[in-house]
């Protein structure tokens, strides 16, 4: 009996329990969501640190194809990072959701969101991946509109329409893949492609997948939904969307499919490099014009996703490790920034950066949290983000692309510039004589914990159990379809 289904079943059952208890047991939802996300975080850390090879689980029996779940280095690494972030966001959301009437609905949707995230990460066949992706997508459309204010509803509708079209493209690609290969099991798909090579139908499927998953990851031609959804959503939801959802639905799914199933070739690599560079430069330029705090963070998210795509496209071991490390650092620091922005909005009554001043004095927890997050994302030396950006830039030079290394370095300076321009008056401006209400423990603890993680995140480069997991993750990506096809259980062609 494997333990893997627990990762999906625990939050799923919790969602049903919260929905059944409903209004009757108000405290239950808040307690249960913290307990469940804490359990998931501890469980995935234990799973990741004790991982030997891979863990597989297949339901069903005989000829019938069953649900296949699989955890290898990459998914274990992602599970640890994402569940850790989700745990702190869950603690914060207990305090944040107090202002809503139907709190239990928020926690119920949050729990379903966790189900989907864990499901995508451990899915061993493409259809389950698609299914859990839709679970995350539909719950996040609901969560964006949870405040039912005009902006939230508008953002939710636009996000849902674009997301639905992207899902249709993914499903079309999946259908074509099934008709071409006769299987949707990821290891079997890898074997089929290794046997037949990348033919013309596969190229068409690649295009469909880049459109579909690229929209979920918000690469630049497909990024239009992100500034709407991230700025209009409630703060914990923005943190989950930016810190978890675009990483798992977009980047994890893309790297799993293109590195381990289809196999990277020069065309795909150049597509990643081009999209990544355009995302970096365009988003960093657009971010200068923003006056809304959350929109600024949203554009910065697009830019950092561009860095990760660039690192994946370059494809040297250094660049891929850098991309994974940047994914982790950005997850920690961007959820920190969004959670802090929620606190700032509550305290100051606005998100307009021209109207907020002197945060470090009046609102120390949110102020210093924002400072740490911004410094980490813009890549100042002691913070986590510096090491990952450095690794990506160094990887570009190593891989023989000095031009892209220069663009990436230039964009890093641009990032620092727009954060400095926007945030220096916000954080250190003239102090207003406004008595600060102290942030409660439910807000202070997750913010401080995420700030510490953003600061020391890159310490996983030093030898130790976390380093082993991290190396295992980048080795999974580097070893390509050969790695995945060894788990193939035989296929009909």
């Amino acid at each position: 009996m494997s333990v893997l289904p627990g990762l999906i079943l625990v939050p799923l059952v919790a969602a049903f329990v919260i929905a059944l208890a409903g209004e009757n047991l108000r405290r239950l939802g808040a307690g249960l969501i913290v307990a469940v996300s804490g359990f998931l975080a501890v469980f995935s850390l234990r799973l990741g640190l004790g991982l030997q090879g891979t863990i597989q689980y297949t339901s069903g029996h005989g000829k019938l194809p069953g649900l296949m779940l699989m955890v290898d280095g990459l998914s274990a690494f992602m599970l640890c990072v994402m569940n850790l972030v989700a745990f702190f966001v869950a603690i914060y959301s207990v305090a944040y959701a107090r202002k809503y009437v139907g709190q239990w609905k928020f926690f119920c949707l949050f729990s379903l969101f966790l189900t989907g995230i864990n499901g995508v990460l451990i899915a061993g066949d493409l259809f389950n991946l698609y299914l859990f992706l839709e679970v995350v997508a539909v719950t996040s459309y609901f969560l964006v509109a949870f405040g039912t204010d005009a902006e939230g509803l508008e953002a939710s509708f636009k996000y849902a329409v674009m997301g639905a079209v992207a899902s249709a493209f993914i499903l079309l690609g999946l259908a074509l893949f099934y008709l071409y290969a006769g299987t949707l099991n990821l290891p079997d798909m890898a074997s089929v492609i290794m046997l037949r090579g990348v033919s013309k139908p596969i190229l068409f499927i690649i295009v469909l997948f880049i459109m579909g998953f690229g929209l979920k990851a918000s690469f630049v031609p497909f990024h239009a939904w992100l500034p709407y959804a991230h700025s209009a959503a409630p703060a914990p939801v923005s943190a989950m969307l930016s810190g978890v959802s675009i990483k798992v639905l977009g980047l994890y799914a893309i790297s799993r499919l293109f590195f381990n199933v289809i196999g990277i070739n020069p065309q795909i690599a150049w597509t990643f490099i081009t999209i990544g560079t355009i995302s970096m430069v365009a988003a960093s330029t657009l971010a200068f014009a923003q006056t809304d705090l959350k929109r600024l963070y949203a554009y910065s998210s697009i830019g950092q996703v561009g860095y990760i795509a660039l690192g994946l496209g370059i494809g040297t071991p250094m660049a891929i490790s850098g991309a994974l490390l940047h994914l982790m650092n950005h997850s920690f620091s961007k959820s920190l920034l969004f959670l802090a922005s929620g606190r700032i909005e509550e305290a100051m009554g606005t998100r307009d950066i021209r109207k907020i001043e002197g945060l470090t004095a009046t609102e120390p927890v949110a102020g210093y949290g924002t400072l740490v997050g911004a410094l980490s994302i813009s890549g100042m030396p002691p913070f986590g983000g510096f090491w990952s950006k450095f690794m990506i830039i160094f990887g570009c030079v190593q891989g023989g692309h000095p031009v892209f290394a220069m663009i990436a370095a230039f964009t890093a300076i641009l990032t620092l510039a727009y954060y400095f321009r926007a945030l220096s008056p916000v954080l250190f401006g003239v102090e207003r004589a406004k008595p600060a209400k102290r942030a409660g423990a439910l807000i202070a603890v997750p913010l401080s914990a995420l700030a510490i993680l953003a600061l020391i995140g890159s310490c996983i480069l030093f030898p130790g159990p976390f380093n082993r997991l991290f190396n295992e993750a980048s080795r999974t990506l580097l070893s390509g379809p050969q790695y995945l096809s060894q788990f193939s259980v035989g296929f009909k062609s």
Partner: protein
Amino acid sequence: MLTYFLCLVLFCVGLYAVLRKRNIIKIIIGIGIIEYAVNLFFVLGGYRIGSRSPIEAVDQVILNKVDPMPQAFASVSIVVGLALTVLLVTVGIRIYEKYGTFDITRINKLKG
């Protein structure tokens, strides 16, 4: 071959509705059409001419049977589509309450 082409036409009709129509309800219908086109394509791909459903009795062997997997996948994806449609219609109603219009070009409080 014609059926596949008609599937593509259906997909494009849905895409046209999503991209060009200004009424929220028409956009939702467009998304429905896109989903139907993809599901139809999936089921069509698993069909073989002159074959029957793969439900076998105990001592029976069916030589020509359709591929059951696309049908299973399509039925799951129809359920996902239902959830999405419910969400979109709900949000559409709430948008009408807030903005007093179904016109997507006039629902623009968020500046881009």
